[in-house]
């Protein structure tokens, strides 16, 4: 990121714009939840918002590769933790009665 004053002022505009978009998305989430209580859409919008915060506000759009690596591993394991525990929940050992011999 160049640190000239012009650049900084441009960034400032960008941040405000993103801020308004985020606020809009929030309204959208509530409206959508009103219309159809769909979990997928709700989480989808949340993911987009979180993505904007991470990419723009936290400058992940322009970061060093080392940080990407750390984060990729982290996100991978976080998803692994959620996914595998759920897998275990949905894959109980077969009950003897339900077996067809």
């Amino acid at each position, binding site marked *: 990121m160049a640190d000239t004053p012009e650049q900084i002022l441009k960034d400032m505009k960008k941040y405000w714009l993103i801020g308004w978009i985020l606020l809009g998305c929030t309204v959208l989430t509530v409206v959508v939840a009103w219309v159809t209580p769909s979990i997928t859409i709700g989480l989808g919008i949340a993911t987009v918002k979180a993505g904007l915060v991470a990419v723009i506000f936290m400058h992940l759009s322009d970061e060093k*590769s*080392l940080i990407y*690596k*750390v984060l990729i*591993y*982290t996100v991978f*394991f976080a998803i*692994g*933790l959620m996914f*595998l*525990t759920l*897998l*275990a*929940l949905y*894959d*109980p*050992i*077969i009950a003897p009665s339900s077996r067809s011999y």
Partner: protein
Amino acid sequence: MGSGTSTAESANEHDHDDHHHDLPFIKKYLFSTDHKIIGYQYGITALIFLFIGFYLMMVMRWSIASPEKPLPGILAAFLNDAWLNDEGRVTGDLYNMFGAMHGTIMVFLGIVPLAFGAFGNFVTPLQIGAPDMAFPRLNMASYWFYFLGGVTMFASFFIPSGAAEAGWTMYSPIATTAQLDEPNLWYTGQTFWLIGMILLISSSLLGAVNFITTIINLRCRGMTWMRLPFFVWAMLVTGFLLLLAFPPLEVAALMQLMDRLVGASFFIPTGLNFTGAGSVDAGLLDVAGGGSPLLYQHLFWFLAHPEVYVLILPAIAIVGEIIPANIRKPMWGYKSMVYAVMVLGFLAFIVWAHHMYLTGMGNVVSTFFQATTVIISIPSVILLTCLFISLWGGSIRFTVPMLWALAFLPMFGFGGLTGLPLAFNFIDLHLHDTYYVIGHFHYIVAPGTIFGLFAGIYHWFPKATGRMMNSKLGHMHFWPSLVAMNGIFLPMMIQGMSGFHRRWYDGGLNYEQIAGQVLFEKDSIFAKLLSNVPGIESGKTIEMIDLNHVMTFSVWILLIGQFPFIFNFIYSIFKGKKAESDNPWKATTIEWLAPNKPGHGNFLSEPIAYRGPYEYSVPGHEKDYSPQFERGPDGIILGEEDPMAESEGSE
């Protein structure tokens, strides 16, 4: 600076560190931000906890071998009489309490702080040529969190309820409901355990952030990734293991705390019928239910499997430093070791449910975890094999640290190989929760990690104190320890395979069918041999349960074997032989450039890495070692022009 000449003297003259000489005692030794002092603090505290853990284990082993005899005075002297029953024997409750706290203290307050906290702190910045850790004050905070956590855990022995008693794993619902009959739930061992755990986890997290940052950002000039000593690599991976695996346990501890204190039911299933442990009434708990005990196990093992690698990696790393220095030959397969340790760090996160085969997981999940578990043994074997092959053709110097390192290899190997059968769920059906599992991991942590740590203490002692440890006493420490360790853990494998459960406080006395299996016939030579062990009558058939006496006897030998060490350690600090130079082992890594007893800031001149970490016996060089920090005829500084010279290892 030639490392053959002695700069020890110059370092001891406090010419370069006079600025920190003025610091008052408290700032210098108690609330120090110097990574070496913090390392010593970690080390001393952890050693004390190791001995406390050892004591707890001696009481347990007494109960196992002689459940019908009162606890002898030497052991009983340190404990609250109210815990013994009216015949002076160890009760089941006491056994449970000591069992849980033995595990906790050894793992979280003993080994990890000693391996990661002490060695990591002392050695890592020196090896990468850094003046200190990246965040010295965070480093101090990390120690004090650990200290507070330790105090909390230890204090729980002195409250009326006694310490936690639900196993080191603290499975819910047994941990949630234990000691529930106490008038004040805040004031119970279980609660203290959880709070202590949260403090310890915070400490580890701060430590991990600090270590990784230090390794990434404070390497000296020329220290590219592939020039890092293996120890540093292992610390980096360990740091990532702690950083990413500990938070889920922190969450789990928090949730268990809520279950205990405010009646939440994260881990309490609906309609749990609580059939009165101890003095608690039978009947339904007054909670909503709807939670899941398995959730706790998932969160716990998501930490605890990576944690077992936290236990072993530093030891492998120490051994990996000691072996090249004592065989005068480069480490065999440095690169494969680095990659192996990275793969290990990755896989360690996706094998955890192999501890939960018997919780009713279905085939899909079992198979997945079985596969990953088998795969993870590959990098472990690579590490071990590289170290073994390194020995080939070396001119081995049997110094005391080297003895420990050499003993580490087969012991760790044995422990690792016995893990393989456990990886298969159908075999685990038989072995789960038996002494076989106990034997498996103790082979890795006790004669494995602890040997590695002893090796490290003997190896870096001259750097820390400027004096050598006595090698005669070192031998007197090593040989009894080696024999005794095997005397303790080998019988466990045998008992485990014959079905001994890991949590019997009477050593199987009440389980005749298992305990009474014949091991050696009456007049066989082994029976005669074993009849020399105190507690086993001569001329009788040796049954499985008799092995308990062998183990308990070995424990006493192990205890006696530690006295030379304690004496040696304290004596050598003050009166040991002066190290003849800053590099007494003639080793190659950068910590040997720093003066002995390094002052604040570590190095007298800027360290620069000119070559790889293990250049021993390089053809054409006059000495049989070419330290990283010596330019020599062929040294080059890598990585200055090229900013991202090599790939990073971020696990």
